[in-house]
């Protein structure tokens, strides 16, 4: 792991501070040598992702400004502002964990509609009387194993059964919710385990444990995507499956692993959600799939695969929970909230398309000059 910092030097720095055009002299010189100095400012995938993420931060700032304008009384109180940030992050934590898994699946060229159902199934399974008798460890293990197992089934159906991801996971959505209802006998299962329930109420250094879990999953996801062979395969498999296959990458096996990863994230989310509600039921995590997909898309993940960032997805989730929070502090209905969310999704995709189009035009011009 010691090499992580030094290998990152030339490429990753371009990702984070890319808001200003690069001033790296070597880079500019190399580009100028080609007579294409203009290309350098967006060079590298990292820079491209960072520019998109910057746009998302702009949206976030705008939302906060709206908050300040509509409720100056609350925003005048700094302790309220801090606790409100924690409320937003806590709100984002469960969907955030699911979205990390979803981001991998989408970058890998698939889609997972069954995440909400997996969360429900894992939550219900972990809170059955039998499972609860094994204590907190048994419950956590059960939720993770169920998530992983269902994800594996998804992956195998898609890879080896050659089902379209949309169909396979849609079927799983229905089936997993059905199984969850069967297991729970359509009842709400109360979690008697204080350790599990404590996950949602514990604060460390004034920050909820749930937020730490989200941070850990996001960090792990970021490292996995950007620093490991797994991440590299994910981009290759999603970007051009045929090229990946002909380069010797086992596309089918990797696809299975992607859905298993998504399932595992759902297992983690199930524990978090169960802890928050101190119970589980078959209808929990309703429509999480839509929240997670929307957040990933807003975050710049290409639905056709091959491109996306974990940070972008995280910002997408935080934007959504900020909107929810904004409506809550202004006492507005969830109906209005949903309409605004829909608008944001459309706006985000439109903005990205415009960016992409200008980019292609730009590249087209450049290509003519290089030859």
């Amino acid at each position: 792991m010691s090499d992580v910092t030094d290998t990152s030097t030339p490429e990753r720095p371009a990702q984070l501070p890319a808001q200003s055009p690069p001033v790296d002299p070597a880079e500019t010189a190399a580009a100028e040598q080609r007579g294409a100095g203009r290309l350098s400012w967006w060079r590298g995938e990292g820079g491209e992702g960072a520019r998109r993420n910057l746009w998302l931060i702009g949206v976030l700032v705008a939302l906060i400004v709206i908050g300040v304008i509509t409720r100056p009384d609350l925003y005048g109180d700094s302790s309220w502002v801090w606790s409100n940030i924690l409320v937003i992050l806590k709100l984002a934590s469960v969907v955030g964990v699911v979205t990390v898994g979803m981001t991998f699946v989408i970058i890998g060229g698939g889609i997972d509609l069954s995440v909400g159902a997996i969360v429900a199934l894992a939550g219900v399974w972990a809170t059955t009387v039998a499972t609860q008798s094994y204590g907190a460890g048994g419950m956590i293990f059960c939720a993770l194993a169920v998530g992983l197992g269902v994800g594996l089934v998804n992956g195998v159906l898609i890879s080896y059964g050659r089902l379209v991801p949309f169909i396979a996971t849609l079927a799983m959505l229905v089936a997993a919710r059905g199984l969850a209802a069967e297991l729970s006998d359509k009842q709400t299962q109360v979690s008697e385990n204080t350790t599990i329930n404590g996950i949602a109420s514990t604060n460390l250094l004034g920050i909820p444990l749930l937020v730490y879990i989200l941070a850990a999953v996001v960090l792990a996801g970021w490292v996995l995507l950007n620093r490991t062979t797994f991440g590299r395969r994910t981009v290759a498999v999603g970007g051009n499956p045929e090229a990946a296959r002909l380069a010797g990458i086992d596309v089918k096996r990797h696809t299975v692993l992607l859905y298993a990863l998504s399932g595992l994230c759902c297992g983690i989310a199930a524990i978090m959600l169960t802890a928050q509600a101190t119970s589980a039921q078959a209808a929990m995590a309703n429509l999480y799939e839509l929240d997670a997909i929307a957040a990933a898309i807003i975050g710049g993940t290409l639905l056709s695969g091959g491109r996306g960032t974990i940070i972008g997805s995280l910002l997408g989730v935080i934007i959504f929970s900020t909107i929810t929070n904004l409506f809550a502090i202004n006492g507005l209905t969830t109906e209005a909230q949903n309409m605004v969310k829909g608008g944001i999704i459309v706006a985000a995709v439109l903005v990205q398309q415009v960016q992409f189009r200008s980019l292609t035009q730009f590249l087209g011009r450049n290509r003519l000059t290089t030859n």
Partner: protein
Amino acid sequence: MTEREASPTGGSAEGGSMDAPLLEAPADAVAGEVVLRLTDVVKTFPGVRALDGVQLEVRAGEVHCLLGQNGAGKSTLIKVLSGVHRPDTGQVEWRGEPVSFANPQAAMRAGIATIYQELDLVEDLSVSENAFLGHEPRRLGFVRRGHMARRTRQILGRLGHAEIPPNRMVRALPAAGKQVVSMARALSHEARLIIMDEPSAVLAHDEVGNLFRIIRELTAQGIAVIYISHRLEEIREIGDRVTVLKDGRTTAANLPARDTPTRDLVNRMTGRTIEYVFPERPADATPADADLLEVEGLTRAGEFTDVSLRVRPGEVVGIAGLVGSGRSELLETIYGARRPEAGTVRMAGRVLRPGSVGAAVRAGMGMAPEERKSQALLLGEPVYRNVTLATFARYARAGFTDTGRERAEADRIAESLELRPRDVRRPVRTLSGGNQQKVVVGRWLLGDTKLLLLDEPTRGVDVGARAELYQVIRALAERGVGVLLVSSEVPEVLGLADRVLVMREGRVVREAPAGELDENTVLDLVMAGSLMEGAAA
């Protein structure tokens, strides 16, 4: 042979006599009137001069054949005529007026219809809906279905296929029937020129006769046909005049299709204006004793049959064959990307698991596939990640990628291949075709590749980069890497390979050292069944 042998005007006198047997000339089409004239048409793409001075003259009611090797510019020419591309310079005259079609619809409206090899029909619409797709007869916004069906029936009748019901789903029709629907669509636009791109390629042998009957019906009505085919026997049977293209130029215009000697036609298609610079073969070709690759009786139904071949370390083996001869499929099967129905592939004596690319790569195979963009590259990813696509896992430690090392290795490859631009962090998308191909080949210079499979390595690659790629391939061979090369450009196979296999219709029809073959012999073999018989005549 490097300059044009006949200008369109010079050649038309002899060609004029060869006009179609006109049964009855409709009032609006004067028989033999020139409908299309191209003068010095030039079209360039980045790095490639696809058309470099094309002359073409097509008369009403004739079947004008276009002949030329792959890459001669036929496809580009069709696209210029059908409004997909616009020429850089030169003039296109359509029915006496200079024209420039903004898009395919404009060409269609002007009366030029194109029937592509891949028929562009909507399978789940009916025959009449396909025929009138995009210009359905309407009244008050409603499609006049009865009227449309009647007109379709009328058109099908004109084509001699009144038996095809206009309301039949196109999916239910055989390939020949679909082709008739494509032609019906052309006629629904009142086309005066129909361009057919290898129409016989999708047809069974006995269906070709029917196609010719239809073409004769069309020309009898004064419609001009541009007919493209590799099969000379067809050109002799249906064609009136022939224009030969080579390297984007017209090398012969308006030759009589029936009695121009085959030798003349082949000569005008071959003989390079572009100099191919091939690296020297090492004088002492010391064939290693052991075979590196042994392919035994490999078969996939409908693609290739009972193919056996060997590649020794340090040997370049070339496969010559047309598109559809099974050569690309063979390469992909050897590589494990397709599963053979019979036969074995051995690398260094060990049988490879069939249908497993991973096993082939682990055994030391690498492949540069035919379609660079769709099969080999992650276009949005930087060059170095494309170069290390097959090897990044080797540089990784405990699953963590080592991008610094990857970039260094890719830099080394970029340096040795003279990649331009050199910067390996640029997205591959921004590179020219030749440099993209270097990235694909460069991928297999990393790791310990023992056998490199190259499928059309120089397609869409400009002349300079070609020469560089040839050097790279030769240098690899000298290092002991075996190379199996597929190309439809015969000079390339002959110039680069030590040993040549000629494939036709899924079988190896000849195997010989490259020195024992010449371009005309190989072309004859590749197109045999047409050229050979033509030569005998």
